[in-house]
């Protein structure tokens, strides 16, 4: 599994690890039913504490991406639907924008400016 970390990422380490593993799942590098490398191997490769990796993997479990099975390790359940993940965030963004008097088209302009 290829894991990439951004050196300038200010987020807590466990979130960065979760992002790295999530990316591998989203981009179908690991398919549903495949097993992830054991947490201690991911930790060794990234040079982080195994508890950090376990915390990240628990986040992914709560998102429904992976499942923990006793004696069988951690396996991928399914790839997340990016629309399903992003849609609530977009709604929240639009609600916030309305509070400042911005229309959806203004938000689109903002997004284009930021990207």
């Amino acid at each position, binding site marked *: *599994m*290829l*894991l*990439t*970390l*951004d*050196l*300038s990422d200010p987020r807590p380490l466990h979130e960065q690890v979760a992002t790295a593993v999530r990316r591998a799942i989203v981009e179908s*590098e690991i398919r549903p039913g495949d097993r992830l*490398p*054991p947490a*201690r*191997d*991911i930790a*060794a*490769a*990234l*040079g982080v504490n195994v508890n950090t990796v376990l915390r990240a993997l628990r986040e992914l479990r709560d998102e429904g991406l992976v499942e923990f099975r006793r004696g069988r390790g951690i396996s991928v359940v399914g790839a997340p639907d990016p629309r399903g993940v992003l849609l609530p965030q977009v709604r929240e963004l639009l609600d916030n924008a309305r509070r400042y008097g911005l229309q959806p088209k203004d938000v689109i302009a903002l997004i284009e400016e930021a990207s």
Partner: protein
Amino acid sequence: MSFRARFILAASAWTALTGAAAVGLLLFFAHRLPDPLASHWGPSGRPDDSMSLTTLVTVTVVLMLGLAVPCLIAAIHGKALRRRQSRGFLAAAFVWAGTFVVGMTAITVWANLDATTWRAARPIHWQAFALIAVTFALGALGYLLGRFGPDESPPTAAQRPVYTPKPGQRATWVSTASNRWLVGSAYVFLAAAIVLVAAKVALGFSSGLWALAIPFTFVGILGLALSTIRVQVTEGALAIAFGPLRWPVYTVPLAQLDAAWSEERWPTEVGGWGYRGLPGGATIMLRGGECLVVRYRDGGTLAISVDDAERGAALVNGLLGSRTPTP
């Protein structure tokens, strides 16, 4: 007809011909052989065991098949024929097996020829050594013969996968491989060693068998060490960690490497499981299939059976990328 089909056809024909020659020898001289005939000679050179002719014919056929069928399976199933090296070994095995069976039969017939009973058969001394020497020499010729023909070449620089991390990004690759059968048999050996020691210590088991505990422990530990591995590629090095404890770790600095790619290899091609081959051309074989192959700057290669090898190879190539790769 493809090269592979021709090889398999030739090997089958050779097996059938040598088998028929051995059986034919026995049947052709049957009227001049005692029945039962001498089939085994002791260290003194005197015959010390006998067999009926029918049994000897059966044993010859079974021996021939026992030697040739595993080679044929290796030739048909794996990719052993594609690579010059493994094809050479297979050809050597075929030539050795055929000539050994025919030679052994010829010596048996010669020794028994015109003897009244099997005990009167001629003694065998140097003939046995000559048989071993000649068949091994012919096997070596077979090796050279098998090397003729195409060889699978490693992918060129353009064919190799490359993954270059973006600036400001740290990329690592980690993957594992394990073999449940190896884990299981390693535990069986360790359990057997414990039982033997316990029998000796607790029950006063008098037989010297308990000394087997030492090799059993050794085999068990070695088996465990080679039953599961973790392979990781980080900015500085490729690291292979063995066994359930992920220790020992074998580290290759990336500076020593020249290129990487993924390749399918099978235990039938590399000669079994575990560490196979010699340094400079070795395979760490846990299970057949995808292997990460790295080439050293001095030209040697190391292959490791591991899942997701293509991506690992891509990262190695990407991290080596700033250097000019050799084709």
